[in-house]
């Protein structure tokens, strides 16, 4: 059994769908961290069989909104004194800005550099989003 020590003060991102941990790790730019971070792939999950977990031994600030884009089942646990002091539940965001980018090569976002990339939720079950500019519908993750 692989053992990852518990953290004293920091953040645990749990219930990440298996395979998405590495993506999230990079989105949070944790490869550049100078504190202890752990990425656990394929941990046992009662619900899904497998899940990924990220443990961050530091209190960092990040926008939890985009975690909801990946999966609303992801939980963010804030740890202090070795205990969970806060559990953040995620929702699928209605509107996301500058987190995902339009893939339509005909979209104005491909040429106009100083504009926000804005998407609006179309279907919370499919987690599909519509580009504010060209209306292209994408499923981000």
């Amino acid at each position: 059994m692989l053992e990852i020590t518990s953290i004293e003060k920091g953040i645990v991102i749990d219930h990440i769908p298996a395979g998405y941990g590495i993506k999230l790790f990079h989105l949070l730019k944790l490869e550049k961290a100078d504190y202890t971070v752990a990425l656990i792939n394929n941990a046992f999950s009662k619900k899904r069989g497998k899940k990924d977990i990220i443990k961050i031994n530091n209190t960092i600030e990040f926008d939890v909104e985009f975690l909801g884009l990946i999966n609303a089942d992801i939980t963010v646990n804030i740890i202090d004194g070795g205990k969970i002091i806060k559990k953040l539940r995620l929702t699928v965001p209605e509107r996301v800005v500058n987190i995902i980018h339009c893939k339509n090569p005909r979209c104005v976002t491909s040429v106009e550099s100083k504009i926000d990339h804005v998407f609006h939720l179309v279907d919370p079950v499919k987690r599909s989003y519509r580009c504010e500019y060209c209306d292209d519908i994408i499923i981000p993750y």
Partner: protein
Amino acid sequence: MLKGKSLIDPSDFSKEEFREIFDLAHEIAKDPLKYKKSCEDKILATLFFEPSTRTRFSFEAAMLRLGGQVIGFSEPNSSSVAKGESIADTIRTVENYADLAVIRHPKEGAPRVAVQSVKFPVINAGDGGHLHPTQTLTDILTIEMLKGSVENKVYGFCGDLKFGRTVHSLIKFLSNYDGVRFILVSPEELTIPEYVREEITRKNVPFIEVDKLREHLKEMDFLYMTRVQKERFFNEEDYIRLKDSFILDAEKMKHAGPETYILHPLPRVNEISIDVDDDPRAQYFNQARNGMYVRMALILKLLGIK
């Protein structure tokens, strides 16, 4: 109240606001000369980042017939855009000189960027394969003139439904009205994009997608023809195989109802055979004239003059 608003997408205005525009357009059509001094001290900027003949002429004629002035460019190489200026900067500069602007751009969503950058009214005159809401105004005015109202009708759309911006705009507009049904005729490669399908599904508008025109013609109150463009096909074989299925000719018109009117945003290439032109059900050349009247109405409403 439409004063100061912009028209980028058919969903930007309420049904009541569209009604105001069409009511005024019908009035203008009856007596255009009555409005010849309405915009005497106003300037319209036409920013055509993509070539256009009829839409630009239609807007310019509309403004000139209202007594206003027009400034602008008709191709980006003659403007600062050629030097790499952003859309936002171009429109901000133009706002200092004009009272409203019309923009056509090859990139989808470019008019939305323009609106976000300024406070004066901006009109989308076509953005890539996305939308063309003032063509929709033209189409609706024509439909109302022919059949009184847009409700409780069957609308056929034929040709390139994937990249046809006039098709997307008209479907989005019509899907807000009761009793509307769509028959979408296209090759599999050119069916409506996902966002149009999502919208009509969400609004519970009945529609069918077919790849043969003839057998459905009789049910249609209107048939909106568009051009199947060769460059959209991945190979020549598919294009040759499919192109004739989407040509309307006098023989096919025999299968249409006595009041199945034919509309087309123009320009036409070969998708409507010239032997259809003299058929009283062919209405595409009347659309162009109506386009000028409805653009006159739109300009007057956005400037708050009427």
